[in-house]
């Protein structure tokens, strides 16, 4: 089959690789009809995530048709259309039983789980196409993909709903939703969102659905700020104004009740500390650039809530622990428990309460995937989301 493979920094290629096969009883094979490039794929593209190997198949946002089902899967049937969560979860461990699917104890193979246990104290879950830290599972930017524990993850899509409406159930829609849910929004709340990429935009939409009074969006790409505006957010361009100053004034001196860091570890900033982070990252003293998160913590109101859907992987310094403690902030974070949120979000899509198609700026064939990465990386103002169609057919 054809698949997008990783070979090094800014080097991804569409190549012919072996077709996936059923390995375990609960596996299924999916013929991919739509797959997207995620902002977090750019971390792999930039090679800021360790444990990548040349030839790894990328992609963790995908959907398609079930073409083969393992003997142990009593739920899926060949021919069904499914969206697959990026998190691989067993459904039977302590964490899955509490719907904390992204903490699944059983989906990361025993050998690769050692790395995250060493880094984070406990082994982390498996995921598609996202380095060997998460298991080294081949991803979905391909014609076919093997889906482990396929009786737990994939959600069946009713007939008549086109791919583009439901594809983002795989990651960024539930990630934006969980980011807003983690804000514990009250009806009088003002929510500030750093980053108007896909997750930030979905977090804005979700915050309004969850009852936020106002949402203030922060970015520097005019087109992305315009999208935020069309969703009802007020906007701040951080190249124009001082963000904390603006938030103080726009909230009558109180500050936002909840703040979402939808940027993650490669935040753009123009202050001395971000330069320092870059230098330290270059000499491998510090891995994560956290300028955005520092600003989030300082700008949040006293007693406010911080939600971090943005991806971080390592350690940082100059963390404003004083502001966090003295102001009594609470923080919620984590990879998304996709399986938990999929059914309710699919229902809201069908009912027209959530729309995801506005985000897609580019639809390319799988063969054009490398160009998709390049433009998503280099033209962030224009390219808000790239969706790849491996079979070149738009499905309904």
């Amino acid at each position, binding site marked *: 089959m054809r698949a997008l493979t990783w070979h090094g920094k800014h080097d991804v290629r569409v190549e012919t690789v072996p077709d996936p096969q059923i390995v375990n009883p609960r596996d299924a094979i999916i013929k991919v009809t739509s797959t997207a490039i995620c902002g977090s794929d750019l971390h792999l593209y930039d090679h800021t995530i360790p444990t990548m190997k040349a030839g790894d198949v990328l992609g963790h946002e995908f959907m398609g048709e079930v073409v083969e089902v393992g003997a142990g899967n009593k739920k899926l049937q060949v021919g069904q259309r499914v969206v697959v969560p990026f998190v691989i979860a067993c459904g039977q461990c302590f964490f899955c039983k509490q719907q904390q699917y992204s903490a699944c104890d059983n989906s990361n*193979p*025993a050998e690769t789980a050692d790395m995250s246990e060493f880094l984070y104290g406990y082994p982390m879950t498996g995921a598609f196409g996202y380095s060997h830290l998460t298991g080294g599972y081949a991803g979905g930017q391909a014609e076919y993909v093997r889906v482990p524990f396929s009786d737990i993850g994939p959600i069946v899509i009713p007939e008549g709903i086109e791919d583009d409406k439901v594809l983002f159930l795989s990651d960024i829609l539930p990630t934006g939703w969980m980011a807003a849910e983690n804000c514990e929004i009250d009806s009088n709340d003002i929510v500030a969102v750093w980053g108007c990429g896909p997750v930030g935009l979905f977090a804005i939409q979700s915050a309004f659905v969850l009852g936020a009074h106002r949402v203030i969006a922060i970015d520097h790409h005019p087109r992305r700020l315009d999208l935020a505006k069309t969703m009802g957010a007020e906007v701040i361009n951080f190249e124009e104004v001082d963000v904390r100053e603006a938030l103080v004034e726009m909230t009558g001196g109180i500050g936002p009740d909840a703040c979402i860091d939808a940027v993650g570890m490669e935040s753009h900033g123009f202050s001395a500390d971000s330069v320092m982070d870059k230098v330290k990252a270059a000499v491998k003293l510090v891995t994560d650039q956290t300028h955005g998160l520092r600003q989030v913590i300082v700008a949040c109101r006293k007693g406010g809530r911080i939600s971090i859907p943005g991806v971080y992987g390592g350690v940082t310094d100059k963390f404003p622990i004083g502001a966090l403690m003295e102001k009594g902030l609470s923080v919620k974070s984590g990879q998304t428990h996709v399986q938990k949120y999929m059914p309710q979000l699919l229902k809201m899509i069908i009912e027209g309460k959530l729309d995801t198609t506005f985000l897609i700026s580019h639809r390319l064939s799988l063969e054009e995937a490398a160009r998709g990465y390049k433009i998503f990386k280099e033209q962030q103002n224009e390219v808000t989301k790239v969706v790849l169609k491996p079979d070149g057919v738009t499905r309904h």
Partner: protein
Amino acid sequence: MSEPTSATAHSDAPLTAAKNPNPAAFNGEGMEARKHDVLIGRSVTIDQPRDKLYAFWRDFKNLPLFMHNIRSVESVSSRVSHWVVEAPAGKTVEWDAEIVDDEPGALIAWRSLEGTGVRNSGRVEFRDSPDGRGTIVTVTLVYDPPGGSVGKIIAKLFQKEPKVQARQDLRRFKQLMETGEIATARPPEAAPRA
């Protein structure tokens, strides 16, 4: 290094968590250990009844399913078994072990017989998790590293350190018991046995 610790007197943690444990402290609990043996311990909670976990483990021919450095375990008699384990450079190490304690649903303890391969002993305990989360499985192993401390370094270079091996084996045991399969990203011909 200071004198090895025989008990974590000021902690509630098990001896296996001590910075410099004295494995000989386990003698008399069905294990046979000396002061400079290597001591390994690891616990995992498995959401299955302890009788089921005990029964699967007690049927030693099941062990190679999740213990990937074990080539085979064969029963010689009701209490004695013969173990063949992979060693560096494609070689194997073999020994006979006898069961010294066996409490159905709760405990299996064993030690190698005099004059065989690698002197080692160990125990696996199955306890109900007090909070209804399943069974806490605790493995404790002590062994005399082949060739002493130099042998231990060589073993680390050429094969998985036993501590790493035990950790990964227990993860696979949990996966197999909870999900019915062993997680892998490898193609079928290279996948782990399950």
